[in-house]
Structures are given as structure tokens and as C-alpha cells.
């Protein structure tokens, strides 16, 4: 009897923990929350400032670094990189969970034999934007297998964990209160559909981890370092949460 009650209580708790998740059909990209002007800026390659980074990425792709350039192996990014960004973060052959920036750096260190590029540096952002761009319009496809699942669950736990001096979880804003206002801004659903993004507030391009740092500082929690496994797991959960939604890279956000 007592065991039965406990079991029911546990089941109710589990249900309550994820009750606030947004139904798949009701998910909306940050694009839908933007003004008409900002949407127009993103939609036209001639006005989208993120294209400056994509163009720089193209010259880096073709630049010989160390033993070879990216193009020496991968050839034309428009075809060879199509859909690649929709699958990241992912677990590589050696069992490491890598996001796209880390995948690019792994390729640099292991194949080109040159030092890794700095996180959030102009060159890594430009290359990431260039590599992601051929996936524009393709749905996010995070495959979950037994190697990925523990990371995904860790990311999910982090998303639902209250943290910082304000004691808020990601889910409290982005699952339960998306669409309403936080000061003058509409709280988006936090789907990472357009990274790296050109953010007007930043006056430049930044990665998803830079955006995560913003939120961490916002709830007065200490952000993890760039490239830390905790951030990559959270990235993985966010991408999985946005599965099926279309990539917009390079997106423009206010």
C-alpha cells in the first residue's frame, strides 16, 4: 500500500517536471517574435550582416592552414556541408560530445596540424557560419542513441535546474513563460535555430554559448567556460528540443 502511494507520488512528480514543455506543433522560432524590419534584414542576403561572416568563412575555408585547407578535403562546402550543422552537437568516433565549433577545431588540430581557433574569435565564428550556411532551411536532426542519451539527459536536467541568485531555471522562462514580456522584450522559446547569429545588441556575430552566457549572467549564475561539457550538453538538449525546426543561419536577432 505504502509502496503504491510512493510510486504514484513519483509518477506525478515526473509528470509535473516536464508538464511545462512546449508541444511540438506550438514551437516557434525567435524569428516569429521579431519585428517586420528585423525579419526583412535576415531574409535578404544583401542586408543580412551575418553574410559578412559567411564571406569571411569562405576565404578561411579555402586558405591553406598548416598542411592543407578545409577545401582540400571537403571540396565544395555548398554540397559537402549540406545538412551537417543539423546534426550537431554529436558524439564522434572516439566518444567525445562535440559541438560544431569543437568539431571544426578538432579537424584543425588532428588533420591540418594547426592550433585550435579561439572560441568566440572572429575566425571560428566565420568558419562556423560558413559551414552552417548550406544547411539553411533544413530541419534540425539530432539522432539520439545510447551514446548521446546520457548527454541529452544531462542537458535536460540543466535546463530544468534552478540556478543563480535569482534561482530560476531555463524552463521557467522559456517553457512556461515564453511569449509574455520580460521588461520590454518578448521571452522567446529558446530554439537555437539560427546560430551563429548576428545580434543587433552585440553589433556582431556570436555563438549559442555566448547567448547562454547572457542568460546565465541574467539569472546571476556563474557561466561555464566556452566549450565546457556542461554548455555543450545544454546546447544538445536545446537542439533536440528544436528537432524538426528549420535552420536560419546566419539569423539576425534583436
Amino acid at each position, binding site marked *: 500500500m505504502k509502496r503504491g502511494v510512493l510510486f504514484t507520488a513519483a509518477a506525478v512528480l515526473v509528470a509535473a517536471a516536464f508538464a511545462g514543455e512546449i508541444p511540438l506543433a506550438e514551437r516557434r522560432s525567435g524569428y516569429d517574435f521579431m519585428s517586420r524590419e528585423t525579419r526583412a*534584414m535576415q531574409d*535578404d*542576403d*544583401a*542586408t543580412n*550582416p551575418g*553574410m*559578412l561572416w559567411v*564571406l*569571411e568563412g569562405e576565404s578561411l575555408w579555402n586558405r591553406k592552414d598548416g598542411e592543407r585547407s578545409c577545401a582540400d578535403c571537403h571540396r565544395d562546402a555548398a554540397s559537402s556541408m549540406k545538412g551537417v550543422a543539423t546534426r550537431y552537437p554529436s558524439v564522434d568516433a572516439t566518444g567525445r560530445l562535440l559541438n560544431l565549433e569543437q568539431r571544426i577545431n578538432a579537424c584543425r588540430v588532428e588533420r591540418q596540424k594547426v592550433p585550435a581557433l579561439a572560441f568566440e574569435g*572572429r575566425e571560428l565564428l566565420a568558419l562556423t557560419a560558413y559551414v552552417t550556411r548550406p544547411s539553411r532551411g533544413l530541419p534540425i536532426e539530432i539522432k539520439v542513441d545510447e551514446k548521446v542519451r546520457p548527454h541529452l539527459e544531462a542537458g535536460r536536467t540543466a535546463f530544468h535546474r534552478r540556478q543563480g541568485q535569482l534561482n530560476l531555471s531555463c524552463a521557467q522562462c522559456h517553457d512556461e513563460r515564453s511569449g509574455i514580456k520580460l521588461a520590454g522584450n518578448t521571452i522567446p522559446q529558446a530554439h537555437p535555430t539560427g546560430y551563429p547569429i548576428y545580434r*543587433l545588441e552585440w*553589433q*556582431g556575430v556570436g555563438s549559442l554559448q555566448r547567448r547562454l552566457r547572457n542568460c546565465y549572467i541574467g539569472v546571476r549564475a556563474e557561466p561555464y567556460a566556452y566549450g565546457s561539457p556542461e554548455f555543450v550538453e545544454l546546447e544538445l538538449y536545446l537542439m533536440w528540443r528544436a528537432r524538426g525546426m528549420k535552420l536560419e543561419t546566419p539569423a539576425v536577432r534583436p
Partner: protein
Amino acid sequence: MARTVVNMPAQAKRGEIIEIKTLAGHTMETGFRHSERGEAIPRDIITQFVCTYNGVEVFRAELSPAIAANPLITFTTVATESGTLEFKWLGDKGFTAAHSAKLNVV
């Protein structure tokens, strides 16, 4: 990074008004900010943008520190004859960028 994007039609009818969109990669540092150590960060902006059409100036802009990074300048001109449009950006610290585009008038 002196990188620019210019978007305009390659062909136009004589007398037609064409729209030209230009984007220049630049940080547009205002000169009003200070570093974490309290030192003033010197101004570094694009100060001038000029467009000439077959050597004749058709558009000029003087930019100020209040203008956002990576300035987008959109303007129109009348397609009078086939030729070349030259775009030039000049700025602080010897910044220069240039772009040219052909226009075929039928």
C-alpha cells in the same frame, strides 16, 4: 576586415530608378567607450561613403559615431547609360574599401 557586399540589378531600362544596397564590415567604434582598465578606446569609424556612376558622383554619405556597426546604406539612382558604378568607403586609421559593379542599360 575590409569586406563589402553590394546588391543591385545587373540590367535596367533607360530612365528606370534602381535600388542599390551596400553593406560594409566595420566595427564602428564610437570613441566614447572605455576599456576595462578605464582607457579611452579611440574612435574607429567609416567617415565617408561615395558612389560614382561612370565617374559622376551620384551619392555621398558622411557617417558619424552614432551609426551602427557594419553600416547598411541603401539608395537609388536613375539608370542613364551602361557603365560602371564605383563604391568607396573611407574611414579612421586609414580604412579604405572599394567595390565596383557593372550596369547594363537597355
